């Protein structure tokens, strides 16, 4: 219960921060709310409005958001075995396949409690996320200059908070370091949105280097 409350507060705050950031990036109230209602996966939404604000083309911006959303497919894979939902229900349940619902459902001991956990978390967060997005977007319009309030730092802080727990081993840190170098190094010379996509190559490059080192050690 404490965990559920903590998740709720965190998601509510990110929803608010997203509404503010999106409005500050020049999206209309309709566009901001459409994203939260229809995309409903936070990191992708932040990435999309950030790329659009930086002047990226709609397709490079959407590509960055898409690649961040790919992890949800892997949650879905594990959830489909655990929840064993009827085929007709899956298209509706799919929209709720996100970090938080997967974490809650996968932690349950039985199929029944996993299903309950998935649907309760999904419904709660969906309502909360969209409500706080609306409040954030309205709040941003009322505040006016969001930069003066430091709200342009909310986006990167959310990314950092999501990233920090992932940096468990040297491999993750190497990927992050290389991605930062690529993202910043290519920024001045390539069209907006493209450097982030190229920075994603840090993942296969480091994996390949890791695999090579592993093989060399095995041969010795």
């Amino acid at each position: 219960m404490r965990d559920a409350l903590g998740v709720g507060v965190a998601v509510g705050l990110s929803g608010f921060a997203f509404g503010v950031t999106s409005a500050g990036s020049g999206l209309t109230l309709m566009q901001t709310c459409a994203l939260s209602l229809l995309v409903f996966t936070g990191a992708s939404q932040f990435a999309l409005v950030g790329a659009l604000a930086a002047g990226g083309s709609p397709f490079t911006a959407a590509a960055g958001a898409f690649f961040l959303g790919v992890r949800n497919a892997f949650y879905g894979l594990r959830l489909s075995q655990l929840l064993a939902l009827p085929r007709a229900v899956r298209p509706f349940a799919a929209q709720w396949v996100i970090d938080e619902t997967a974490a809650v459902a996968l932690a349950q001991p039985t199929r029944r409690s996993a299903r309950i956990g998935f649907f309760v978390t999904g419904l709660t967060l969906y309502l909360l996320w969209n409500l706080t997005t609306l409040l954030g977007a309205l709040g941003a319009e009322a505040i006016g200059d969001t930069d003066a309030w430091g709200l342009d730092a909310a986006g990167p802080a959310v990314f950092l908070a999501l990233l920090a727990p992932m940096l468990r081993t040297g491999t993750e840190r190497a990927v992050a370091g290389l991605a930062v170098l690529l993202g910043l190094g290519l920024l001045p010379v390539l069209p907006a949105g493209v450097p982030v996509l190229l920075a994603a190559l840090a993942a296969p490059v480091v994996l390949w280097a890791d695999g090579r080192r592993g093989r060399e050690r095995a041969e010795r």
Partner: protein
Amino acid sequence: MNVWIAIGVTVLGCYAVKLAGLLVPAGALERPAVKRLAALLPVALLAALTAQQTFADGQTLVLDARAAGLAAAAVTLMLRAPFLLVVGAAVVVTAGVRAMGAG
């Protein structure tokens, strides 16, 4: 119009990957290399996005109040502060540095 195109493409793409996970037969994506890559992709994207949204102004690199805000967020993360405090610290420090006239 461009914004709506971006929203439309993102909506379809993000929904498609969510649904794909539920519909693909188990085992199709279970190869270790694919799983490793899927776990590392968000790391690369989030790191690059954090850096860009902190140090970029359009296509130029700048050092302004956002860097101080992000440093504050990093410190609170190391102290294992809750999410709320991490984002709050970044916002407050950025606003504070701007109010003092820097960046």
